[in-house]
Structure formats: C-alpha cells, structure tokens
C-alpha cells in the first residue's frame, strides 16, 4: 500500500501551495466578476439612473467556503499505529469554485501516500448533482515527486452514493486513475454508518515509486459516526488496505505486507 515513505519535501509543499493560490486567484474571483458585471437590472426604463446607482442585492451569487475532514483518524492493528487524514474544502459561488483535497498517512514522524490537489470546479450541465473538476495533484512522498494534471467529477450518484472518479496525467505518458465512493447509511438520525472505497489504477509501471501497471491498490472501510452536531462526529470503524499486481510485487520484494486490516477511530469535522 505505501508507495514510499519520506519526510515531506519542503519544496513540494511550497509548490503545491503556490498551485492552490494561483488557482484561487486566477479562476474563481475572475469568473465571479464576470457574472456580477451582467447586472440583471440593465434596462430599467422608469428609474434607470437610480438603478445604476443602487447596489443590487446579491441573491444567487454569493461566495461560500467550507472545509470537511471526512477522515481524521488513528489506525491500528495492535502492533503499529498510523494517522490518516482525508479532507476537502471549497470556496466560491454556485457556478465557480476553487476546490482543494488532501489525503495521506503519517506514522513514526514520516508521511506517506499523501497528496494535495487543487481544482477549478464547476457544475456539469445535465448531471444534476455532479461537478467537473480540473486541476493539479502533487504527490507528497519519496522518489521523484510528481505533479499530475487532474481531471475528474465529484457528486451524488443516483441512490445517494457519493462518487468521485478522477483521471491523472503527467509527463512521460503516465496515466493514472482514482475512484472514490461512499454512502451514508442512517442507523438513527445521528448514528450514521459510512462504507467507503477508494481504488487506484496506473497505466504505466513506475519502479522508482514502486508502482506496477494496472489496478494497484484499494483502501476500503466502514466507519460508524455519531453526529453530536452535524459538524462534529466522532467515529469508530474498520479499514482494510490492500495492494495488487505489480505494486504488490514491489512491496513483497521490500519485505512489506500487501494487506493491511486495521481498526480506526477518529473525527469527522467540517465547518
């Protein structure tokens, strides 16, 4: 599962932050301004002058921001423990948003399998509950650190399934894919079980990063949270991570296990 371990390279973080910042400044506010300028009250025959002086109400074009950590948890199998985070946040209007995602593991002072992503996000016409996302992904781990071009959708599939497939491309003809899905099962109004699944694909073997071709790994689990409030929900659960194919072979050669079942405990928080 772990595709290399290292302390986060400072440079990488800086690069990622820069990427995020540029996406925010270039895309989201620019698009906003464009919408504001098309004032709905342009031809107001009776009180045209008054209308132009007046500040139009904002209705329907407001900027919101949210940040959600779906997983902020400790994972343990009794022998070793690690910390896992998986979160996302967005800022923008209904139509134009800057979107950030990050996930990774931390244990024994090192961070592994982590990445940070920044997207421009926009609803997809005809897909009622899906947003299209285009942006960058920066891997935070050892070896040659990679920057991927990312292209994906995220939203609610029929049946209330959260569904988030993303395609990644980088130099050297590398193509990768990641599909994330989850479902909220209400046991009671506040006790909610969330089965979740994440799978990764790689189009090309990448030995320095210990990745084989094809279906490389899976991280699945079920978490039962109690929503003390909607925004603050501690949970317990079980997670199972597993590697496949060439990726698993790399791990076996390094003497690491390819299957990793663990108990998890953590917090789901958002604001």
């Amino acid at each position: 599962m772990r595709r290399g371990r290292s302390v986060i390279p400072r440079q990488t973080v800086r690069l990622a932050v820069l990427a995020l910042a540029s996406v925010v400044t270039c895309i989201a506010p620019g698009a906003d301004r464009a919408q504001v300028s098309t004032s709905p009250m342009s031809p107001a025959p009776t009180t045209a002058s008054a209308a132009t002086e007046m500040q139009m109400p904002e209705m329907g074009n407001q900027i919101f921001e949210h940040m959600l950590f779906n997983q902020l948890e400790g994972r343990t199998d009794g022998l070793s423990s690690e910390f896992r985070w998986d979160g996302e946040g967005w800022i923008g209007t209904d139509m134009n948003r800057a979107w950030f995602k990050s996930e990774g593991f931390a244990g024994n002072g090192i961070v592994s399998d982590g990445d940070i992503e920044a997207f421009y996000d926009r609803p997809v016409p005809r897909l009622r509950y899906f947003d299209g996302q285009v942006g960058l992904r920066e891997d935070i781990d050892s070896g040659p650190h990679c920057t991927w071009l990312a292209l994906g959708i995220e939203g609610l599939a029929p049946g209330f399934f959260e569904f988030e497939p993303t395609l990644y491309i980088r130099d050297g003809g590398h193509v990768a894919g990641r599909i994330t899905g989850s479902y909220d099962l209400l046991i009671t109004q506040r006790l909610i079980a969330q089965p979740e699944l994440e799978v990764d694909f790689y189009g090309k073997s990448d030995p320095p990063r210990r990745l084989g071709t094809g279906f490389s790994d899976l991280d699945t689990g079920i978490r039962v949270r109690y929503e003390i409030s909607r925004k603050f929900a501690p949970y317990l659960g079980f997670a199972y991570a597993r590697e496949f194919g060439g990726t698993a072979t790399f791990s076996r050669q390094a003497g690491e296990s390819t299957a990793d079942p663990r108990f998890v405990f953590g917090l789901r928080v958002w604001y």
Partner: protein
Amino acid sequence: MQRRNLSRYMPVSRRDFVHALAIGGTMAAVAALRGWSAFAASTPRTPAILTGTDFDLKIDSWPVDFTGRRSFATAVNGSVPGPTLRWREGDTVTLAVTNRMKKSASIHWHGVRVPADMDGVPGLSYPGIDSGETFVYRFPVKQSGTYWYHSHTRFQEQTGLLGALIIEPQYGDPIEFDREYVVMLTDWTDTDPETVFGNLKEESEYYNFHQRTVGTFFSDVRRHGLRSTISDRLLWARMNMTPTDFADVTGATYAYLVNGNPPRANWTALFRPGEKVRLRFINGSSMTFFDVRIPGLLMTVVQADGNDVEPVVVDEFRIGVAETYDVIVEPKADAAYTIFAQSMDRSGYARGTLAPREGMTADVPPMDPRPLRTMVDMGMGNMGGMNMAGMDGMTEEDMKDIRGMNMGGDQKTAAGAEAGGMDMQNMPDVKMDGAGERSAPGATQVFRSETENDAPMRMGNDQGTIPFPQPGPGVMAVVVEPMAGYRETKLELSNPVHMHLGPEVDMVPAHVTKRLNDAGDGLNGNGRRVLTYADLRARYKGADGRPPTHEIELHLSGNMQRYIWGFNGKTFAQSEPIDLKLGERVRIVLVNDTMMEHPIHLHGLWSELENGHGPFNPYKHTVIVKPSERVSYLVSADTPGQWAYHCHLLYHMQAGMFRAVVVS
C-alpha cells in the same frame, strides 16, 4: 427571557419611548407604556401598539433570550417583534426610520400598495438605510386590513426586524368583533442566519433530523411489506430526493414564537365568554409554514392577506410564510383554549392561550404525525391513486416541452397516453375559467370573460394607469369588458418558457396538477375541516373587471442538493427583469417544478388568485404554490416602478428565487 438585564439599554430606550410618545399621540403612549412594562417583565409580552400618522422607528441590535441562551436580535424601538403599527385608511402616514446599527437596514411594508420608491427594497426601491441614517417614508394609505412589515436586507427578517401592521377601514369595519389580537408567528434561531445559509449550501439536509433510517425501513416493512418498501425506497433513491423534505430549516434550530414568546412563556389573549374575538394571524417567520388550530373552537376565516373573504368556518388552516388570515372565534365557556400552531414538518410548534383570566392554560395537543411527500408532489402522476388534472388537452407537441421527469440528463418524456384517462369530475376547482388549463408553452388559450353581467363600458387606453382601489363595500368594478355573454379572447403566452435546465434544476415534473382543493401535505384526511385556497371567495367584487391581455408563465425551479433556487432555472443573478406595461392586465401562471411549497410574493400589485370564483377571486399578496402545482393569478399593472417578486422563504430568496418586475 426570565433574567434579562436590560438596564444597560434602558436609557436609550426610554428616550425612544418618550420620543414615540410625543409623536404618536396619547393612544400610542398608553399602548407603548403597556408594551414596555410587559417587555421588561418575565411574563409573556406583547409588542407595543403605535397609532397615528407619524411614527419614529429606530432599528437597533438588541439582546434577547428566546431559548435560554442570550443572543442578539434586530429590534424596532427595542422590541422583537417590532411594535404593531395601526394606520387608518385615507390617512397619509409618515414613518421616520433610523438605523442605529453598523450595517445597512431597510423596512418593507408587506402587502401595502405604495409608490415604488416607498416599498423599502434595497436595490430596487432605494439604496437601503445606511448606518446612522434616517429614511422618511411618506405615502397615502388606500387600503385596510391586516399586514405586516419586515426588513428586506439580507437576513434581518430572520433576526427579528418585523412587526404587525393593522390598517383600520376608513368607514367602519364590516367585520364584527368585540376585541382583537395580533398573533404574529415567527421562527427564531440563535445561530447566525448567514451560518444557517452556509450550512444549507454544504448540506441541504443539515436541519432535517427526521430522515428515513434503518429503523423506519423496518417499520415500513412491517406496515407495507418488504416489496413495496424496497420499491418505494429505490424510487426516491433514484431521484436523490427524500420524502421527508418539508422544511429546510426546522425545529432542530428554530424556536417558534407567538408575538415573540416561546411556547413555555405562553402568550395569553384574554376574552369574556360569549365575545367575538378577532385574531389576526400573521406568519412573519422566515422559513416555516404553520398549521394553526384552536382545539375546542371553530374559527371563522373572514380575511386573507388583508382582503375580506366570505366567512369560512374551519377547524384548522395552513398559513404560508408572509400570509395573513383573520379569524373570528367565539369562546362561550369560561375556559382556556390553546392556540396551537405546529410547523408543517412537525418539528416544533408555537403556542399561545385564549383565556378568560391571566395564568390559565389548556392542554397542548400532541403534534400530528410527520407527513411524507408523495409522487403527486414529485409530479409523477397518480401513483397514490389520486386524480390528476391539468393534463387535459395536452398534445404530443406540448409534452415535448414538459420533458417528463428530467433527471440527470436522462430525458424521459412522460407518456402522453396517461393524460387521457384522468378524472376531472372529482376536482371541483378545475373549472373552465381560463385559469391556465393550457399546460405547455406555445399553445393558445380560450378565455371566457367573467364579467358578462356587468354593464358594458369601454375604457380609454389609459385604463389601469391609476392604482385600482382595494375591493370594498363601496368600490365598483372600475373597468368592464364591453360584451354581454361570453367573449372569447385568444391569449398569447408573452414569454414562451425557456427553462434553463442547468445545474440549477434538479427536477421537472411530468404531471403538473391543480391543487387548490388540496389543504396541503400532512393535512388531508386528518379528520378536521381544513381551509383550502378554493374556499377563499372575496367578499367584494374585484376592482378591475378586464380580462388579461397576455400570460406570463414562470416555473419555480431549484436544485435541493446544491441549494440553488430560482425562476425558470435561473437565479436572480442570472436573470433579466420581467417587464409589464403600465395599465395592462396580465395572468401570471406559476408552475412549481420543485417538491417544496413556495410562498410567492409580488410587491406593489395585487395577485388575484384564480380559484374559480370569477369576479370574486380573492386578492392576495402572497400565493403558496404547492409541489408540482400549477396556479394562476391576475395582476393589474397599475403602479409604475421596479417591484420585487420572490419566494418568501428567506433562504430561497437569498439563494436566487427572486426577480424584478418593472412596470413602465
């Protein structure tokens, strides 16, 4: 409320009070005095009553405690809700409104026909009232009835900037009563409304703690069997919608208040047995529909939205946000009665008491079972065995524009064949009165004049450019069609509906029905006589007898998950104003493409609801459109200017369900 310390704020308030006293005259002084002492006390309080022609209103941030937690509200003259204003028809009123807060504010006179620049909508009528400024409203009062006022700036209405507005008829009230009370129903949250709005954007079910769970699944299996439960669950799941959607903001955060009193404070109205008591119900809440009843008493509805209606005796009525109903009750016994107003989603209630003496209480009834949305609400036809209307005469071509249940780009056209076998007989409200039987754009409509019995009289081209009077005992129908017998007029749709089917829209119902006879979800078959829109028959003939010259059809649209709301698939920010020609008479057809009720409010002009009573169609300012319902009303564009037109659910409005109507 119990231990509030107001001393810090008293000096300011006293000064206000003295000022109001000087201006408002003796009656106001007495009323205000009573109001004040009540406000400071721990027992239930009633907002002060200010009477006269000159008013001095101060808007300020004010400490309140409705829930046991101290927070800040937006007050008028130190009162939440604000003082009740009593005007007199025929007077010219002057209202100096001073904003003492750091941010901009406004006051809109809801349902009052005023010149456009006096309407109090920032951005349309005026720029709003800036911090420290005073805006002086001055206009003649040409109507009577029960109305209310509220802020039109962001969420100030939610934080308490509202109050009752009573206009006494100039020549005596045709409604008989011995005493009267305002019953202002509101919803209060300690959470900053901006946060509430943000929460809904991120998670539209944030405040719904009555969703379907594993537990309800098993109880449904026991009741309906495994098969039908699973197919029902799958049906809703396929659409990503939940039948428990009745209120976006619920009792999970709201306290429901009567005249600013939570249920435990038990606001009490006194009566002597045998008296006729007039209760002026005003729904001044931001998001809550109430189902109101007084167990043990029949209520006679005599007025709706400020306009007298033929008396209707009911056990219960649903009052949408911003609507008003005046009812007469005649308690004969020397006993207390509970005024019980449960929220439509049954997540809480407001409560007061009618009693012969202070301190008496009556039983508070349990709330009704929580209702569920049905396939009728989803516009998916008669799956529940209900009769469908509004589908008659629909051609294949028409159906193309209805689009079936448009879900996620999967364009499934509803079978036109289904429309054939509909039972029209059991829908008494479906009369061929021209009330928009045509169900799709592009078709023409045969109009049948309702004024055939009036004396023929042709008016000039300037007809309707002077505001029509409110219908009343002495008001004649001003304009009449010059025809004896029925006259057929072809009505062209002035705006072929271009539904913008973007991410702003998550459903388009295949079956739009007329639901005027429907009391509303959760009220049908509860064993009580519940008021419906079809029951509302104006007491006086409408002032404008002309037929409409064209139709404007608007679809109420939204995307629940994204929490985007609008008209025709567009938010206010994306849309152009609706233009009306001064003097013209138009029919507005509203089609609700969502599964929520929307109270639609047109500023400045009356909405004459077409509910089958012809010249006696009721005048309203706010019209509820039920899920997948088609409703129409006539509008005389007799007052020029820019008018707001919007859903009165505050968060829907702020999310884009707002249009400007320009009369010129």
